[in-house]
């Protein structure tokens, strides 16, 4: 079966900001394949090259070298064909006509995507209902909350009923509830058979909704994994954080088996990083026994997981 999206040895350089400096390499030899009907995550920290890759795939940017295709259409040779089959959703506030209502924004893009006039009204109604904006459909977007704007962005990306949808950090800046709602919307799209390529710097998000996740750092692809692997990493490198821990208790904890390091955060919280799974519980019991009552677990940061799993290769500088 033909892949929905492919990239082969994709590279993108940007001109340096000052003359004499080396060019910035945003993507370096990236080869990946997104299969039809999957939610494929692109996970990476700030500056990893996620947006750059989405821009190349959505024909906003051309690669310096290498090739990329969407449903078999080359993004450089035939951008017109690519544009007809994709939808594009950026995360953030920008990209909407804030002086228009949601409905008028969608009518505008329906015209630009050549949606037939007779279908436009019903399609817009259905999309507005789907993203929960029916009641506010005729209010100006400038009066919308961040979460409402993001849902409108999604509706906009879906206006042409595209087969492939690119979502660039769509939940950035949303509160946990709004993020969860947004993710649920994205999952309903998979059920309709759409192929989704989603970028994120949130491991939890990637694990929760993606079928496969490509890990990227400083322009280089590190690996492509299933969500179970991510889940394993998240628990394996889980941290314990506790407040009100005396120095004696901290010394005691750092001697426990499986503890990799302990660290005092500026606010006095003790952060305990573990090296193996299954040690979180004994650590917490020891802390409770020492009279500590404010404690809990936190998922590891993406940078930390990269460092642990990929060593120096994944180290963010």
């Amino acid at each position: 079966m033909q892949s929905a999206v492919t990239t082969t040895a994709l590279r993108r350089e940007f001109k340096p900001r000052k003359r004499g400096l080396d060019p910035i390499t945003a993507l370096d030899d990236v080869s990946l394949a997104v299969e039809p009907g999957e939610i494929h995550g692109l996970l990476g920290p700030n500056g990893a090259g996620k947006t750059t890759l989405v821009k190349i795939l959505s024909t906003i940017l051309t690669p310096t070298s290498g090739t990329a295709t969407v449903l078999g259409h080359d993004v450089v040779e035939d951008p017109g064909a690519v544009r007809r089959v994709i939808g594009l959703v950026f995360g953030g506030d920008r990209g909407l006509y804030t002086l228009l209502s949601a409905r008028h924004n969608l009518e505008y893009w329906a015209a630009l995507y050549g949606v037939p006039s007779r279908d436009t009204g019903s399609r817009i109604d259905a999309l507005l209902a789907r993203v929960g904006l029916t009641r506010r459909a005729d209010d100006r977007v400038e009066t919308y909350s961040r979460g409402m704007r993001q849902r409108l962005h999604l509706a906009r990306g879906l206006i042409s009923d595209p087969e492939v949808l690119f979502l660039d950090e769509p939940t950035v800046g949303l509160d946990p509830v709004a993020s969860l709602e947004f993710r649920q919307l994205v999952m309903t799209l998979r059920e309709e058979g759409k192929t989704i390529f989603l970028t994120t710097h949130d491991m939890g998000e990637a694990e929760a909704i993606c079928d496969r996740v490509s890990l990227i750092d400083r322009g280089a692809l590190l690996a492509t994994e299933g969500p179970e692997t991510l889940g394993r990493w998240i628990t394996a490198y889980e941290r314990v954080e506790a407040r009100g821990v005396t120095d004696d208790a901290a010394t005691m904890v750092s001697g426990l088996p499986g503890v990799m390091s302990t660290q005092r955060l500026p606010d006095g919280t003790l952060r305990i990083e573990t090296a193996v799974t299954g040690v979180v519980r004994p650590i917490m019991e020891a802390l409770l026994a020492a009279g500590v009552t404010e404690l809990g677990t936190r998922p590891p940061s993406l940078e930390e997981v990269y460092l642990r799993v990929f060593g120096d290769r994944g180290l963010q500088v």
Partner: protein
Amino acid sequence: MTIRIAANAARVGYRETRSQYTWRSWLFGWVLRLVAQTLFFAAMGILVGSDDLIEFALIGNVAAGVTLMVLGIGPDTAWERSQGTLPLLIAAPRSLLPVFAGRNVFHLVQGVGEGLVIFVLVAPWVGVEGNYLWLPPALMAIALGSYGLGLFIAAFAIRKPRWGNTIYNLVYWTTVAIGGVNVSRTVFPHWVQQVGSFLPLVHGLTGLRELLSNGFTGAAVGQLGLELAVGAAWFTVALAGFALFSQGGRKDGTIDLVE
């Protein structure tokens, strides 16, 4: 479909214009600026005591005001950038020309309206009278003639975002200088006049002056026709420009820059 795109874009342009101006800020800011410019040049005629020169400068600056407003759509892509919609427009399967053409339709009406307001305000001051019924249609021809070049500048601003305003000013002042606004075109060397005949305003203004002095003559119609032809030619160049410059912007990664 193209019409539908333009109509939807016109709605965006209308809302944007409405949010930029109130009646008062428009009248006291923008219109007064143009009135002052017109008065300044008409005053030169008063200074040398020539009624012909007063009328020449008045009509010239009223028409140039229309071109100023219409060419102003050039740096408009800057607004799409600030909204973050330009990359989305590039990623959509249609040409940008109907979008920008539709978005700025309102500026045609606004430009002609302003020309008329300025005329009505300034003419009595400088003692110009007569039958000026030809003014509105001739100004509309000039607005249409200027539209294509304005759109081309808009296309150019996709490629060189920081140069949009500079090019706009350069083009406008060149047009005013050699277009027969304050001094007759015939004072310039032949080649300058040749260059001028590819610019908007030039033919339309010649036609307008002809209409006002000799009425509805073949020469007048011919000049207004040429004005529209110049507009259509630049419109075609703008169409190519949008394709070419978006391609260039994709290469150097400037499509989504905010400036």
